């Protein structure tokens, strides 16, 4: 019995390692744009992983052109193609979302749960949450708070800043 050589090429493994590492690192960032780049890198790393899963490279998988045991696996390529298409679509969507966020809030930060923070503040003051109207508390709505708060990114970045643009705001 001939055995398909499934030992992955060292270069591919190295490439997967680098792509996944950088991808995970960027995914942990706050800015949606960086998260997106991380997602793209990570996605490409996984595509390579799929490629490796199909065994070593070979000739075109067409009967009569390539002997059987020299064919490369077409299925993984089909799966990778599907994954690439999906990644492309989602990338476009996330880009649009990051832009919209920048338009509305002046930043594209993926924020912590603002409402959770409010509930936690109430708990810290040891007040039953349902007897305290949040309007009384500070007079600002969650949307305004979301626009003001930064979780990690610096405030003093020179950019559009916390603009007062409120077009399309649902308040």
């Amino acid at each position, binding site marked *: 019995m001939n055995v398909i050589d499934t030992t992955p090429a060292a270069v591919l493994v190295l490439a997967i390692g680098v792509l996944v590492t950088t991808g995970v690192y960027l995914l942990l960032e706050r800015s949606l744009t960086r998260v997106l780049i991380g997602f793209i890198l990570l996605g490409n790393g996984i595509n390579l992983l799929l490629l490796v899963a199909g065994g070593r490279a070979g000739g075109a998988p067409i009967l009569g052109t390539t002997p059987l045991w020299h064919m490369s696996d077409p299925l993984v390529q089909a799966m990778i193609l599907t994954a690439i298409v999906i990644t492309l*679509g989602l990338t476009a969507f996330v880009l649009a979302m990051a832009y919209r966020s920048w338009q509305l809030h002046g930043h594209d930060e993926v*924020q912590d749960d603002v*409402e959770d923070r409010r509930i936690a503040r109430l708990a810290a003051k040891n007040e039953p949450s*349902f007897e305290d109207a949040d309007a009384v508390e500070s007079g600002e709505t969650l949307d305004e708070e979301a626009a003001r708060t930064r979780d990690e990114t610096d405030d003093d970045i020179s950019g559009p800043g916390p603009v007062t643009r409120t077009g399309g705001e649902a308040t």
Partner: protein
Amino acid sequence: MSWTDLTATDLVPLPVVLPLLAAGLALVFARRPRVQRVVSVVALAGVLAVGIALLVLTDDRTLVVDVGNWAAPIGIDLVADRLSALMVTVSSFVLLCVLLYSLAQGVSEEAEEETESIPVSIYHPTYLVLAAGVCNAFLAGDLFNLYVGFEILLAASYVLLTLGGTGERIRAGSIYVVVALLSSIVFLIAIALTYAATGTVNLAQLSERLPDVEPGTRLAIQLLLLLAFGIKAAMFPVSAWLPDSYPTAPAPVTAVFAGLLTKVGVYAILRTQTLLFPTDPRIDQGLMWVALLTMLVGILGAVAQDDIKRLLSFTLVSHIGYMLFGIALATQPGTAAAIFYVVHHITVQTALFLVVGLVELRGGSTSLDRLGGLAKLAPGLAILFFIPAMNLAGIPPLSGFLGKVGLVEDGVRTGGFLAYTLVVGSVVTSLLTLYAIVKAWNKAFWQEAPQEIETDARVPRGMVVPTGALVAFGLALTVFAGPLYSYADRAAAALRDGSYVEAVFPDGHDRGVGESNETIPKAGAPAGPASAVDTGEGTP
């Protein structure tokens, strides 16, 4: 193939194909809202009819369709067994009710508030694509097709969640999207590892090959799949995204997400754990801990909330724990109870979110600080809230009670420290659910309003009727609990008796074709097309 050759199996692809076709049509008629509405309603009603037909047909045998007429291990296949048919039927009913509800809402709100109204031209195609994705996930007989189904429904859900692109929705949406992207990546890694280890992604073939895989590798694959589906199902350590993102969406969107999306994750866990992997006590015990924590952490979160939508989102997380409990028991009665609970919970949770949408319309808010006195103002609304709320908490004799009793019974039968802990945990969770729900009931319906509720908004009948239909369906689940429970029992039995694999490979020929992907025929051996197949399943 002429039309006269059509058989029962030809129904199987319809729940996926119909909504997708209709989505295309709806996009073509983007400027003719009335046509769009007719198309969507007809398509989803069609899916419901197909679902009911499948429900009856699959009770006799599991239906398998080889897409493109390539037999199973080479081509991809759609498989409808009892569980799939049940999920498709319940989902399509819920989808239809929510669609009708949103039609009425779109009409009533368009004039008043631009941002709150649903931009109908995008809404319909996206909603239909979501329906197709959900059905595809339920019918997929192939791990990669399951992934595609997930991606279809997730992509649609991103759009629906950020409808209108308001600040709040973009903020909540970015968390949701990032988490969902991550879970998709994890799923893809699991697929790559599975393929590397077994040379196939076909579920039936996997169930024959995975037991031979080295245990460590198998455990890694199993845990990765659990994590990927667990994120989607919102099980405890990875559930924090849900209560933040769901409540900001428009009421019908929240309702359909709460009802269906998490249950697709639960379904995927149920399918892969029962079909692919031999029972592993380590996994089952781990899953029990996860179930317990999901229940308790979820419901404690719900108790702290002062907004009905968020409160319900937390109960949603919490009650996923019950289904995980049923799956973790790994017995037939436990699985049956979990299936029954899934059906019950889809209906009840969706109904509650729809009612909250009505409450928001009538009372002008979903905050418990501002609502009050609705029982007097709108008694009908109060009844619509009260019935599913009590059902969720598991008050006898409603269906929630029956599902919980099934789980508790089987937990006691299984015995052992962990099972008893979970029994106690599920009872405590049930009581805390009651506490949280009653708090909402008292604040919103029973007590005097803290400030005058100014709106004299009439709730349109078009929204009340679908809500009422869902509430009535929830009651029907109680009345017809006997037949439904025995159906769930048969569905659970079919999950573990190997009938799935038999249906996909009627000749039992799988093993002969390439024991694993490492071996191919010798150079000199005659290479017939059958022996040429070592890893191929066809293009996904």
